[in-house]
């Protein structure tokens, strides 16, 4: 329960920051994608299941407030969280390379999916333009923000895990 509330607060804070503060801090009208970072981070820290659910709810939030159809972002985010969960075995808290690579890949594949489904299918074919002007800047900005955000999430997760372990040993 404690974990659920904490995760909900993290998602809410990231969503709010992403739609208010970071829109104001946008460079060249590009803002970072915090929810992808959260989804991906919980995916490889906690496994497929949590990644999937956290992705699903983050996406649902975006769908409700900014989506055209309910369910599209939820689905994309859920899959991203799920796929990130496969890397749990390779994840070590001290190593920052893997998280950065995973979050970067997640952000990039998210943008590719959005491009294909929401732009390409409407006849916007200049992929190179969108790649250079939307996807790559967002990638760079997201990675920069992630370096800070990742450590915050990591610390919160470690504390949660410590509390859970203590409880388990108390009752078990």
């Amino acid at each position: 329960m404690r974990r659920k509330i904490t995760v909900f607060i993290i998602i809410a804070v990231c969503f709010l920051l992403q739609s208010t503060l970071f829109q104001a801090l946008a460079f060249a009208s590009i803002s970072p994608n915090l929810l992808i970072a959260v989804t991906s981070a919980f995916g490889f820290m906690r496994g497929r299941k949590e990644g999937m659910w956290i992705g699903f709810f983050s996406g649902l939030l975006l769908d409700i407030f900014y989506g055209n159809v309910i369910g599209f972002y939820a689905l994309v985010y859920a899959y991203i969280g799920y796929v990130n969960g496969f890397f749990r075995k390779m994840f070590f808290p001290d190593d920052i390379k893997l998280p950065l690579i995973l979050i970067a890949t997640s952000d990039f594949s998210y943008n590719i999916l959005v491009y294909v489904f929401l732009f390409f299918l409407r006849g916007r074919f200049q992929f190179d333009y969108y790649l250079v002007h939307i996807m790559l800047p967002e990638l760079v900005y997201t990675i920069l923000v992630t370096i800070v955000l990742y450590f915050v999430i990591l610390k919160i997760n470690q504390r949660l895990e410590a509390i859970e372990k203590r409880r388990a040993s108390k009752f078990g």
Partner: protein
Amino acid sequence: MRRKSKHSMPTRYTLMILTGLCLMVMFVSFTLNLSGGPLNSIAGYIFIPMQNGINEVGTWFVNRAEDLKTMRDVMQENKELQTQVDKLTQDLSTIKLEQYELNNLRELMELDQKYPSYDKVAARVIGNDGGNWFNTFLIDKGENDGIEKDMNVIAGSGLVGIVIDTGPNYAKVRSIIDDASNVSGMALSSADRCIVNGNLASMNKEQVIQFSDLKCEDDSVKAGEQLVTSHISDKYLEGILIGYVSTINRDPNNLTYSGTVTPAVDFQHLQEVLVILDKKTIQKD
């Protein structure tokens, strides 16, 4: 933990169920044009107050920062004015420019009065689309303030967009520069109709959106022409200024023209908008 996972469903099945659910909801909301319904209300009551709060804090900081900045500017200007008399002449020319702009704006205002005055309600922009692909935003007025889907949103004298979804205390607006937006427009002087569609690429490159399918006499529409919403649109009220034609080219078919429009509204610094409470009513068969 081990014991528990043995009894619970494997994650891949949950994923499949979720996928099916999402696809179904997407299909339903796309075909029936439904929005979140109760989800909108719940999410609205949880998140909109927080967004409002952040915005108020943000605005406060921006105002303080601007105060500081302007104070610094004023001090610097003061120094410069004392040392440089030339600067005064420069200021004079700036004022002349502003006068010119003021005259222009006054003309525009008169133009605005020509159209029937609609009932409007002012709203503040409280959140932008989280991603970089689209250009939708949230305003802090919703169903409780009488806002409904398909109401037009303007700022100053120009068209901003249209309400595409509402919650109890917020509304979602798609701006005309959004990549998926299409508006039926017409040239003000000749009433030739065209389609104005938002374009992410051209908006990013040079702050313009595109229009197409303009049928007019040879070169009767020139750069600088005003485009307003047309009388045949079923959602946009007639005669709201969209923007000014910046480039125009004849299409390869030799019949129609297309080109780019500079929107009348500054979308970068949009803070307050007006929602027109009158909706265009079209009898549908």
